[in-house]
């Protein structure tokens, strides 16, 4: 395997003082693929995203984009390399309309010199087209983002990242705060983004969300990788078992049984 991956994290380690946050983690993703990073709270998922998106730098290991080593010193560097991160807080302003939010910070303009204005007609058109291409069904681009459901908001954020040229899309727990149906909607958009040739890194603690959309699964536990599995190598049950920490879950079941008997 000498083919360069679109984004590759190679033996990454990160320490905070004497705490080992990540130890020797390797992950890769390619165009049109979804790599899922699974882990419970404290597994190191957030630290890992922060390194991929340029917020933090790794203490050991390399980041490679198309085989070339890169050093991100800020989120801006990562964005310039086509790596967009959609955080849980979404970077959206609830009182503003969808189209104003979509272009916030990157408004298309018309006119010359000081007499440049925000091309609202064009902006609304693009928003409507982009969202409908993603299969996202909004009623009215003038609607305030605050009136959208959590899933719709997540979807608009994903569409925005894709529109602004993301080659790699990092999604930080996009489904964790959502109900079953809403989470399903977001999973659909993850697949839509993949179909459009975007490489997706999907961070979650829910194996039931990861399994249907993932092509590859990396399981983190206490900063260690429990392994990388192609979809063909692992079934859903095994993923759930690994994710819950196998033995620990069996022990927990045992304890619960004991409690039930006592009751």
């Amino acid at each position: 395997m000498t083919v360069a991956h679109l984004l590759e994290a190679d033996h990454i380690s990160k320490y905070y003082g004497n705490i080992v946050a990540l130890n020797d983690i390797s992950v890769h993703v390619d165009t049109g693929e979804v790599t899922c990073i699974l882990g419970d709270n404290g597994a190191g998922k957030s630290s890992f995203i922060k390194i991929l998106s340029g917020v933090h730098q790794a203490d050991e290991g390399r980041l490679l984009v198309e085989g070339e080593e890169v050093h991100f010193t800020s989120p801006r560097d990562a964005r310039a390399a086509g790596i967009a991160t959609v955080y849980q807080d979404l970077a959206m302003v609830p009182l503003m309309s969808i189209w104003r939010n979509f272009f916030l910070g990157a408004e298309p303009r018309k006119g010359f010199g000081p007499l440049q204005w925000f091309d609202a007609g064009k902006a609304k058109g693009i928003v409507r087209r982009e969202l409908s291409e993603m299969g996202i069904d909004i009623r009215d681009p003038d609607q305030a983002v605050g009136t959208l459901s959590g899933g719709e908001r997540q979807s608009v954020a994903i569409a925005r990242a894709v529109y602004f040229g993301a080659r790699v899309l990092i999604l930080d727990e996009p489904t964790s705060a959502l109900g079953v149906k809403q989470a399903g909607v977001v999973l659909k958009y993850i697949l839509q983004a993949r179909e459009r040739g975007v490489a997706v890194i999907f961070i979650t603690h829910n194996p039931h969300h990861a399994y249907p959309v993932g092509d590859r699964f990396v399981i983190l536990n206490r900063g260690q990788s429990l392994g990388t599995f192609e979809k063909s190598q692992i079934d859903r049950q095994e993923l759930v078992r690994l994710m819950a920490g196998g033995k620990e879950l069996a022990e927990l079941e045992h304890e619960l049984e004991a409690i039930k008997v006592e009751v």
Partner: protein
Amino acid sequence: MAETAASKAPPDERLVSVGPLARLLTRPDIGAFLGAVAVFFAFGYFARSVNWIGDPGIAAGWTDQAAQYGIVAVPVALLMIGGEFDLSAGVMIGSSGLLLGYLTTFQHMNVWPAMLLVLFFGLVIGLINGLAVIKTKLPSFIVTLATFFVLQGVNAAGTLKLTGQTAIQNIDTASGFNSARKIFAGDLTHYDFKVKVLWWIGITLVGVWLLAKTRFGNWIYGSGGDANAARNVGVPVARTKVALFVMTSCTAALMGIIEALELRSMQSGEGIGLEFIFIICAVVGGCLLTGGFGSVIGTFFGAAMLGMVQLGIVDAQWDSNWTFTFQGGILFAAVLLNTWIRSRAQRAR
């Protein structure tokens, strides 16, 4: 690109076509507009002895008063939408007028270059307010309250020391006074309407354009709505806010120039108390105290309403001390109405 085709796509079938009236009732400025119309016709009845509705001279009176409030209320509204307050906007009118008076009568400057210096003074005060808010991260309510009191002291003590009185007078003796007065504080030939009213309308139009049609306008909404989110997507929040403070101070300086040229003298206490009137105009106009939402057109009608109340109470031959009570009542009623409209706007889409 298919955006033109996409933008002309047929409307979603789930969008039950809301009637134009229902749609109108979700605008943030509709409350102020309806309020202004109501106040106009109310005084049409109570002040019918002076032909309130039909007499252009009466309209010239209240539009003059409304312009007095409305000019500075525009940047104050933008600043509020951007999530900040400026309580020094009132006293800045006095400071600027006094400075113009000092430069023209004590330093014998021509009015025109003196005006430039006064506007520069506005720029400096705006920068101080803005940078202090950004650097200290203190609430702008506190920072500009401090500026307000500092300037109030400077105005009173400075004027007394210079003139031995509480006002700077004889500004009309300065060279360039007549040409400047024509543009800033003259009468339009018909019906005694003031030029000031045109400034009010012009500045309102600029404010509307800025907010609705420019990138800066989008940044104002973003900075006020959620500064963190805006920063994350690349909006220069600090620069946006400082620019808004500068706009507010410079507009207040312009108002000071207008008043000094109109009155030919400047009292050291001039402008104090107006800062709250500006905020009332903005809030009546639909601006949210927490930022991120509001309207310049609404603020225009808010100023019109307060101008009408000020003059209407006199024309109805009521005790003018009731003006404040009316202003308070209008503020309260408008906030209730606007809150109701906003909850509709967020539901009814």
